[in-house]
């Protein structure tokens, strides 16, 4: 037994999938790539008002004043085809991409021997597609050709209990023969598939050629399926008809994209581990950004906030013309908090907070400091903290060569320029922005230098710890002058 799932008006459905509110309205899909753009698929509401395929947009608009016109969208058609295959693959491992918007499933091995079981199975499959704003029909037949014919006649599912009876009165045009064959059969008075089959294969071959025989064989023989695997990529794309200049419009589309991607991954029991955002700009450039989800999830709010936080600060040179959001699937994290483990309760929330802090203070001003392998004072770099569950680093042994200092220094960044009067080689009077006055006691000088082997980076200094009436300070003298480095506190 075979099943065929068909998306009627596939191109129209693909184009309207991001705008489901238009499905009940009068909309005409226009193929703008043709030399003379014409309506290719109108909605049922448009048909009721006289819009037909082949009309020019102006003709269609004349018949239906409130008509909305949409262009065929190759990116959306690709997404819809991927969704169809991915959804079908969750119901049968043997699937064929028969035509745009048509998928054939081999039901061998599935417990679908009765019509009731098949209808229940079809209801689940069609329901899964409906979550992606796709209306589908399903037909069941003993071979792929008959199943496809059943799908075309289904509303929304059809089980062929008696295939011969089903096709006997069906018009020959349902087999979609070439125009010349259809005209010849019409002249002979052969209107139905039953009459066509009654001619006999030899007579058909002699009069109409092998092509006509093949038409008959599509419903009589059980051809092997060209099995395909659904793409492992989960992406939503959109080419905008008008350039997008504001974040709000972009976020509106992205919100729907995230919803669709989460549903698609949910259907195959996966979650979003990474989001890849790609914006095509009118200037021809592309903007790309990868969002790694600290704790993979399908939570729409978390995923959306992550994108929103970034896009609110994004400034592009030119407007956006196309958008692609790709989700890398992963498995949902399972983590039990340990007795002695201080993992983050909500890594995704923390990632968002970190992103906001980076925006607030600057990307190099929020993170975990890492000391550089240098004796240059105050030499460090900022790194992204790794506090996520399971990644919290174990206690590390103290640095062997660390300078164990009791009183902590509060650094002035940059060091404050100071006027220092020396008595011998000891500071006697300091005058700077934060400290001034006579020096009560000193320690030093402590000389240090480094990087003399690298041109332009060498440094040398003499340090003193000085006590004034106000407090304890570290003062240093370098070729650039005297500075107050910080206050001991």
């Amino acid at each position, binding site marked *: 037994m075979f099943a065929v799932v068909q998306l009627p008006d596939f191109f129209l459905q693909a184009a309207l999938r991001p705008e489901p509110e238009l499905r009940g309205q009068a909309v005409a899909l226009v193929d703008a790539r043709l030399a003379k753009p014409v309506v290719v698929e109108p909605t049922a509401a448009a048909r009721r008002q006289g819009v037909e395929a082949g009309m020019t947009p102006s003709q269609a608009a004349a018949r239906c004043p409130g008509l909305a016109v949409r262009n065929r969208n190759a990116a959306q058609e690709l997404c819809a085809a991927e969704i169809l295959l991915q959804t079908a693959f969750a119901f049968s491992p043997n699937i064929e991409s028969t035509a745009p918007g048509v998928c054939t499933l081999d039901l061998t091995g599935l417990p679908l021997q009765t019509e009731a079981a098949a209808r229940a199975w079809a209801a689940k499959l069609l329901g899964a597609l409906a979550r992606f704003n796709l209306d589908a029909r399903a037909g069941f037949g003993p071979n792929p050709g008959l199943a496809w014919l059943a799908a075309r006649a289904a509303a929304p599912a059809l089980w062929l209990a008696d295939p011969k009876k089903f096709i006997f009165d069906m018009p020959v045009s349902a087999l979609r023969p070439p125009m010349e064959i259809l005209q010849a059969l019409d002249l002979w008075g052969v209107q139905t598939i039953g009459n066509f089959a009654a001619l006999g294969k030899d007579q058909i071959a002699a009069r109409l050629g092998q092509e006509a025989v093949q038409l008959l064989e599509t419903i009589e023989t059980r051809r092997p399926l060209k099995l395909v695997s659904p793409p492992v990529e989960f992406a939503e794309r959109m080419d905008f008809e008008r350039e997008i200049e504001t974040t709000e419009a972009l976020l509106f589309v992205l919100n729907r994209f995230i919803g669709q991607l989460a549903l698609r991954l949910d259907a195959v029991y996966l979650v979003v581990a990474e989001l890849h955002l790609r914006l095509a700009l009118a200037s021809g450039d592309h903007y790309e950004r990868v969002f790694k989800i600290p704790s993979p999830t399908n939570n729409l709010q978390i995923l959306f906030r992550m994108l929103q936080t970034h896009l609110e600060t994004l400034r592009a040179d030119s407007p956006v013309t196309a958008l692609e959001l790709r989700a890398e699937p992963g498995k949902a994290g399972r983590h039990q908090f340990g007795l002695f483990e201080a993992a983050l309760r909500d890594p995704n*929330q923390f990632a968002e907070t970190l992103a906001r802090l980076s925006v607030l203070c600057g990307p190099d001003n929020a993170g975990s400091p890492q000391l550089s392998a240098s004796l240059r004072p105050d*030499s460090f770099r900022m790194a992204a903290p790794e506090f996520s569950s399971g990644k919290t680093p174990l206690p590390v042994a103290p640095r062997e060569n660390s300078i164990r200092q*009791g009183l902590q220094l509060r650094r002035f960044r940059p060091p404050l320029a100071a006027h220092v009067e020396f008595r011998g080689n000891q500071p006697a009077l300091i005058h700077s922005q934060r400290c001034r006055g006579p020096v009560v006691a000193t320690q030093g000088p402590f000389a240090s230098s480094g990087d003399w082997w690298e041109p332009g980076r060498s440094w040398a200094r003499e340090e003193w710890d000085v006590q004034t009436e106000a407090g*304890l300070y570290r003062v240093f003298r370098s070729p650039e002058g005297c500075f107050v480095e910080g206050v001991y*506190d």
Partner: protein
Amino acid sequence: MPSLKVIQLRQALAEKFPGMRMRLEAKPARESGPEPDLFQNCLVKGALNELSAGRESTGSATMMRALIAHAAARNQIMAAVDGFDSLDVSALEPAELARLLWIRCRDAETALKAADLLLRDGNLPLIFLDLKLNPEAQLRKIPATTWYRFQRLVETTSAICLAITPRPMIPAARARFVLKTSFALRDLERDAPELVDAASWEADALGQRNANLHSA
């Protein structure tokens, strides 16, 4: 003195968690003196705490450093919102740095916004807000309602928020400690635990009452 069962449990845990054993082994060095986490027993969880250090060189940074070490030794992650970008990270150990989120700000307003984000986040159990070096002009602009808002935020969590200020200025603080020490040049030769032990501080009536309530 812990009971035999407790000792056996500790041994079993130390074998199961090698990381813990390292910390337990590091402990005996401090057995001779009091715990370095001077305020840890009095800091109120889920509340705003204030450490006020009026003069220079009173040891507020050293206290903060001791608290960072204390938290890191317990594998806690923490954040330091540095109001004047003054934290000397070169004095911290790698294990402390790995558990520290350092937010470097240049003014009090940015620091308060950063602290607000972290308090709303609710992931970190210990948050320092260091305003010690910020100019008085910046601190005067902080409305009292900000601190009440922070208190409302932190009380929904079990986090400790410790603000280090040059003068008592947080009306919503549940615990306030005022440092009275004034360190001199000779104190540079002393190690950190000694300095923490030597530091003198006093808690105001409100802070002490809240600390008692917490410990009760």
